[in-house]
């Protein structure tokens, strides 16, 4: 009997409510004190087409899904066919009794078929076919001995808006699903048991965490054009905009979005733009405008596989180079790359301070896997205490006392010029995307030009020195094998490290969450002191690896890459590690 350690995969068609079913089940598991990791796999279509929701459950915090399925919940015939191969020996398939699966699908396989009349239960007990999903969740509870009270609790909360009878019907359907399975005496060697101890946990995904972080970080303006997989940031902030007094604008295009954000940032707002790679590509010219005019803005770029429209609903980390080097000329920016849901929150909270302190665009580079993955996380991990640092922003009093003309782009040691929000009578000023003097007037003077370039880029150096701390270590200080990665590969790498160390090897892992500029010195030290380094990236060319070589000269030939639009699992990484070792 395996206890609190299994992967449930719910498969069905787009539009069948896979996502809300999965989410609800995750909430139930969380209430029971378990630790789920959930992720969605969906296509760029609205109805029909196979989607699935994968939930891995554990009794301690886990950061990744993993290969293989213990229990397949098939809401369509298709789902059986698509996922049968992935089921572990001894695993099971819950499916609708009425499916026409063809004869012998389960023959010669160590898989337990659990037919359940989902749809009949739904129509009989609930009165509506759409409740088949609920019957399925009830059946999962029945199979695993999971207490349906956790499920019913969530049903009550989630369906409350739909009225009491819907709530009641769903509860009945869930119970009937459980009862049916129990009555059949299906045997299944997995158990989901509550872990006692009353602790609140948040069930939250990467985009929501980023949005919550942005709110905490003082974001009060967002202009964004919808683009998968970034859209849920915009939608969550919109939902709360009236309540939180955040100005929200969905404009005509990404070109409008970033320029509106620049206008708002210039006017003194903490402005945010959310997008994905294609939208970011349209913003490239104005990224340089923000850099040149020293306007603080934050851009959340949630990556999906390119080039071009690519695979809109899938995951990749292929935009690093294009973001770091975007826009003509050498122009300043900072790039953060959260690896976990917790870090997504922190990046959201931190980005606005960085943008204002250094008066430049800050890009938060995330990806679909991080954006859409869900875990149960203690609320303390999301520190919503508000501490706003606007950097060298001149107060009314300081402006009052200003001697001489206000110089918007004043030369200073750090490169940062004291900033005035336009609208103060003591600081009437211009700025421009043309090269300019300290006042913000156009210049063609070669020396001024050189000094202005130095000043703008100096800010990036200052930020690197003062704000960035370098790669984050997981595992022992000294190791025989060192992984390096960034972004959402974190979970799979972390677990690979754990498993390797359990097997007696000495492995550690650095991940880089402050990704531009790189802490080159520290990274070089790590690479030089590592016996063996493996770079893990979800892209074709190893963009971080190449960036590291660019900045340090250190070659990073051992790269584990994947660019099929799907996230890594620990198994995939471990297999590649083994392959590499065999090659040697």
């Amino acid at each position, binding site marked *: 009997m395996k206890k609190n350690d299994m992967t449930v995969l719910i498969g069905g068609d787009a539009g069948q409510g896979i996502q809300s079913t999965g989410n609800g089940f995750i909430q139930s598991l969380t209430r029971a004190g378990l630790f789920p990791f959930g992720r969605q796999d969906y296509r760029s279509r609205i109805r029909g087409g196979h989607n699935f929701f994968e939930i891995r459950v554990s009794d301690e915090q886990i950061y990744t899904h993993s290969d293989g399925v213990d229990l397949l919940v098939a809401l369509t015939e298709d789902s059986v066919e698509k996922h049968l191969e992935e089921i572990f020996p001894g695993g099971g398939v819950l499916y609708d009794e009425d499916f026409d699966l063809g004869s012998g699908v389960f023959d010669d396989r160590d898989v337990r078929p659990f037919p359940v009349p989902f749809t009949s239960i739904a129509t009989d007990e609930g009165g509506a076919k759409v409740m088949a999903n609920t019957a399925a969740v009830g059946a999962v509870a029945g199979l695993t001995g999971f207490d349906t009270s956790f499920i019913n609790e969530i049903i009550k909360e989630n369906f409350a808006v739909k009225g009491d009878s819907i709530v009641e019907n769903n509860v009945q359907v869930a119970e009937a699903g459980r009862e049916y399975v129990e009555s059949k005496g299906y045997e299944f060697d997995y158990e989901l048991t509550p872990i006692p101890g009353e602790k609140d946990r948040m069930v939250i995904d990467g985009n929501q965490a980023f949005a919550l972080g942005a709110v905490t970080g003082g974001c009060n303006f967002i202009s964004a054009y919808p683009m998968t997989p970034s859209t849920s940031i915009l939608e969550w902030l919109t939902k709360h905009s009236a309540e939180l007094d955040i100005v929200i604008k969905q404009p005509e295009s990404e070109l409008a979005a970033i320029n509106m954000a620049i206008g708002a940032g210039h006017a003194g707002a903490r402005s945010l733009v959310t997008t994905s790679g294609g939208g970011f590509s349209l913003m490239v*010219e104005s990224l340089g405008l923000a850099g040149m005019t020293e306007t603080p803005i934050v851009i959340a770029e949630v990556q999906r596989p390119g080039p071009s429209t690519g695979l809109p609903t899938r995951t990749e980390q292929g935009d690093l180079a294009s973001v770091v080097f975007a826009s003509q000329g050498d122009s300043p920016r900072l790039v953060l790359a959260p690896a976990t849901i917790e870090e997504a929150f922190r990046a959201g909270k931190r980005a606005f301070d960085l943008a204002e302190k250094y008066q430049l665009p800050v890009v938060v580079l995330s990806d679909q896997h991080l954006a859409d993955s869900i875990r149960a996380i203690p609320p303390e991990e999301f520190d919503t205490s508000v501490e706003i640092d606007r950097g060298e922003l001149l107060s009314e009093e300081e402006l009052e006392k200003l001697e001489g003309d206000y110089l918007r782009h004043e030369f200073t040691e750090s490169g940062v010029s004291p900033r005035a929000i336009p609208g103060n009578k003591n600081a009437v000023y211009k700025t421009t995307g043309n090269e300019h003097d300290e006042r913000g007037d156009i210049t063609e003077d070669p020396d001024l030009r050189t000094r202005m370039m130095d000043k703008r880029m100096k800010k990036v150096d200052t930020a690197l020195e003062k704000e960035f701390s370098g790669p984050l270590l997981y595992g022992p200080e000294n190791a025989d094998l060192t992984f390096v990665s960034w972004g959402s590969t974190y979970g799979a790498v972390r677990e690979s490290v754990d498993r390797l160390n359990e097997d007696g090897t000495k492995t550690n892992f650095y991940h880089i969450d402050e990704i531009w500029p790189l802490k080159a010195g520290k990274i070089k030290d790590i690479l030089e002191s590592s016996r063996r380094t493996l770079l893990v990236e979800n892209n074709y060319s190893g963009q971080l690896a190449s960036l590291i070589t660019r900045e340090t000269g250190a070659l990073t030939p051992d790269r584990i890459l994947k660019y099929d639009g799907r996230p890594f699992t620990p198994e995939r990484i471990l297999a590649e590690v083994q392959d590499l070792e065999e090659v040697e």
Partner: protein
Amino acid sequence: MSEEVSLSDYQYPTEPTWCPGCGDFAILRSVKASLTDLGLAPHESLIVTGIGCGSKLPHYMNVNGFHSVHGRPVAVATGAKMANPDTNVVVTAGDGDSYGIGGNHFLHACRRNIGITQIVEDNRVYGLTKGQYSPTSHKGFVTKTSPEGAIEPPVRPVPTALTSGATFIARAFSGQVKQMTEIFSRAMGHEGYALVDVLQPCVTFNPGRSYDFYNDVIYDIDDEYDPTDREAAKEKAKEWGDRIPLGVIYKEDRPTYEEQVPALSEGPIVNRSLDPEERSGVDLEELKREFI
């Protein structure tokens, strides 16, 4: 509004780099004069421009200025206005900038009724890049990129704005500074989006559309004319060619975009706390409960 604003408050030492005789000089003069007439001090406005000869305007006066990139000033201005609706936000940019590369922002600003004033320095040519045809160039205009004459019929700014939902539409002429100043004042006084298309002679690259040329065809819309009459405005908007009307062609009262944004109901967002709890009274710990 500040007391006792005078034209000299807008003086600035930088000499314009425009060609002698350029219609932009008059526009600069009118912008300064209208701001003075409205009693606005330099810090109360933000002039957002694109790239082009005319877009250099804020560098030649004492005012808050954001000289952005080609085609985007309307978007930048919209953002600034939404962040701080108390500011008098004015865009000045060329016809290429406004109707060519920036045409989409123009279209959407009209229907959005965002409270900015868009002054188009419409010289019907690309000035700063030295004389290519523009979206408002007349058919047949011979330039370095249209050696056989421009093929496309020009964009018609006034009818386009009218169809697109603009609530204030006017035409001015660089040769009539007094009238232009009045029009600018009315445009900036208008609640909501205002377009002023200015016939601006480019003496260097569009000599065919000179002061003399326009003087022969322009006329002032008379006082009887009621710009709030949409049907009349449609007729007026059509006039072009032999007779080009100058003045306010259309005016409508409709809620501005910024008025309708819930987050702005208690004043400019930039005047309020950045701390979301202070600003909105929402307890973020409570907000987190949504996920529990």
